[in-house]
């Protein structure tokens, strides 16, 4: 019965062929293999985002009712708090996993020829994930999310000429309001997924096409000294084990530290003390703050935004600068640039939190 069912499916979908292909695909085994799992972990957390996001969508009401609907989800609906908590925690873990994945790809030099497009699409996915985070953060419309969004949207507003219109368009008016929630909601559940999913498809297809890159230390070894395992079932089993570990960590965080809901946002009340962006925006936010201290007013913010954009630009084009599989000057420089980026992100994030403690 089972085998005839399998044959029926196989004849139509070519399952055997797909498995044979997956068995044929090999994954390198070496001291840095651990970092291969982070792309898969990011994917898993994204799937959790979709699943919990759809469930939240059933009860969430954007606009004037936003806060009340989230209050009901958190305090009235059965296990609504758990779904919301899992959604918020997995969003943060998702961005964390992408960052780890990106830096591991960077330091293993997995962006080199022919993987440049994979690198660029990956950075695009990170930006979209950050946009998901920024737009989703406002949706509960509690005090903290309201004022943090207000501060966040104040940054592009400071850009000359185009800043004002961009900020007004995002806000749906001169200030953050229920219209902003409506817009952010549309972004969060329609526009961003429409951009994210095809880009993710291209990214995964490129991973499939080029396979896992070997770090330079492995590339230097003779072929006979390199170890590999088949993607299916060996690597996939371990990948799934990592998903399971991620699920446990997520369940633990969501259950033991459920995501709280603050007071309803009130535009007329003063901003509470210590308003700050989410942790993944803390570094750019604090860099701008430092520059603002040196160059007060709009000049500091404009120069800051330009510098940050230039840094990101360099980050995106690094595969074209360090394209060859050699250990020359460019390779070393790219490595130091990566170290500098990690150090400055950690340092400015830490300084940002130190400042609001």
């Amino acid at each position: 019965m089972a085998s005839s069912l399998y044959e029926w499916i196989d004849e139509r979908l070519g399952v055997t062929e797909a498995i044979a292909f997956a068995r044929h695909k090999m994954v390198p085994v070496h001291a840095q293999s651990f970092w291969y799992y982070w792309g898969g972990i990011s994917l898993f957390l994204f799937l959790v985002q979709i699943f919990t996001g759809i469930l939240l969508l059933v009860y969430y009401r954007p606009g004037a009712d936003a806060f009340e609907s989230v209050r009901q989800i958190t305090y009235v609906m059965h296990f609504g708090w758990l779904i919301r908590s899992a959604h918020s925690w997995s969003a943060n873990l998702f961005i964390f996993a992408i960052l780890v994945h990106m830096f591991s790809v960077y330091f293993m030099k997995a962006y080199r020829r022919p993987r440049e497009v994979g690198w660029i699409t990956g950075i695009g996915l990170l930006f979209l994930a950050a946009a998901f985070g920024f737009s989703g953060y406002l949706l509960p419309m509690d005090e903290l999310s309201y004022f943090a969004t207000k501060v966040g949207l104040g940054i592009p507003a400071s850009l000359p000429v185009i800043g004002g219109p961009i900020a007004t368009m995002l806000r749906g008016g001169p200030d953050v309001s229920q219209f902003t929630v409506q817009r952010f909601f549309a972004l969060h559940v329609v526009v961003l997924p429409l951009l994210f999913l095809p880009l993710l498809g291209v990214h995964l297809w490129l991973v499939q096409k080029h396979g896992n890159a070997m770090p330079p230390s492995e590339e230097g070894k003779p072929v006979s000294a390199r170890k590999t395992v088949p993607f299916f079932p060996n690597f996939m089993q371990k990948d799934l084990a990592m998903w399971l570990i991620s699920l446990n960590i997520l369940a633990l965080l969501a259950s033991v530290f459920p995501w709280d809901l603050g007071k309803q946002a009130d535009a007329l009340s003063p901003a509470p003390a210590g308003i700050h962006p989410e942790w993944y925006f803390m570094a750019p936010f604090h860099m701008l703050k430092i520059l603002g201290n040196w160059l007060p007013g709009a000049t500091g913010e404009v120069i800051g935004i330009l510098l940050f954009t230039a840094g990101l630009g360099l980050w995106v084009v690094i595969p074209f600068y360090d394209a060859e599989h050699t250990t020359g000057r460019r390779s070393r420089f790219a490595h130091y640039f990566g170290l500098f980026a990690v150090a400055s992100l950690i340092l400015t994030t830490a300084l940002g939190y130190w400042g609001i403690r």
Partner: protein
Amino acid sequence: MNYPFWEVPFIGSGWVIGIIAIFHVMISQFAVGGGLWLPMAERKALREGRQDWREQLEKHSRFFLIITGVFGTVSGVGIWFAIGLTQPEATSTLIHNFVFGWAMEWAFFLVELTTLAVYYYTWERIPARLHLRIGWLYAGTSLFTLIIINGILTFMLTPGAAWLSVAGTGAESSRFWNAFFNPTYWPSLAMRTLVCISLAGIWALVTGSRIDAEKQPELKSSYLRWTTMWLVPSFVLMPLSLGWYLLEVPQSQRALLSLGISTIGSGTFSQVTRIVLVMIITSATIIFVTYYLAYRNPKDFSLAHASALVLLALMATGSGEEARELLRKPYVIGGHMYSNGMRVRDVAAANKNGYLRDNAWMGSSPDDHWVRGELMYRGQCGSCHTLTGYRSLDKLMAGRDRESVGSFLTMLHEYKPDLAYRKFMPPLTGTPEEINALGDYLYSQANPGPATRSSDNRLAAKTSSANTSTH
């Protein structure tokens, strides 16, 4: 109030017991389950003439001896110190009621430790059959330690009507067997036995993962596959025994389980539900990982996998124990003593004559208003709350003005039947003046000012002079 208050900053004194107890339970239940695992495995090796198994079992028994004989015993004594300091009144009640039970426990414990040492040191030195008999003797004595301690632990949740009818009369020990074989005794024993058997399997996977699959592939496969079978009884029977256990738990306590289904209030409102969720997901993961990694791919099963399983088991055990503890709320001994050590029957007297009246450690009710407030906090809140850390009163009182703090305390003092907090908090006892002092103290802690700072000094000075006069 016969004992001083033990205040542990940030984590609170309750978590001192919790941390030691979770660690201890994980090991002591391994001692019971592993006690059965060892002779069963040895019998299998003897029947099948497997010398490689016997050599592996000797290695496992060394691991077992160190883990249970050293860490298990030290943490067990640690629990005694911790409960004596944190819940002296409850510990006193348990000792008065179960001194005979504990004497039996210690007798079995001594035999258990001795036989374990003999078992390990006589591998290949005495006839195999005799060695196996020593293993069975160990298994029997360690099982009896569980049989006894289970009576005392379950008593705290469900002391039973017979014991409660004589509680406080001085004749409590006349109901020893009623208290021992209380309503949750048998389902709890079933659950704990299943957990012990599972833990025996999980810990044995640790030693099994160390077998070199290149050199001894067959040993590793057979050893790990046989060991994974030890998780099957738990997988099949645990849901049933958990259901049986919950049926025996009073409805008021069982309701705590469902409080967190629809809400995430602060404190204990939803804690039991949330902790049970952790227990479910970690237990399910253990079964999944054991089947796919240890059973299906034993040769690839590594120490990292085994360590992850131990960590998951620690989380599952910790969650289970915490959920069990929380189910007792608002009591530490169901229906008899509240979680802050106040006996149910003493509440009216404390309200009439004052909570601090019998404070042996202060000589008498202190004159200083601030000192009274702080003592009220330490005595009635400090068992479950801290000022700035776990279940922080700073956080819970934040944003309240003095009047609101007072209303909250009055609400806890009146303890009306429909009060939501009754589900997990004891009543606040004391005279209106004492409650007012507590209100001032809590308000000043949440809104620090000069008065607060001086109160600490006053209490320190008072305590110091009282101790001097006592000596």
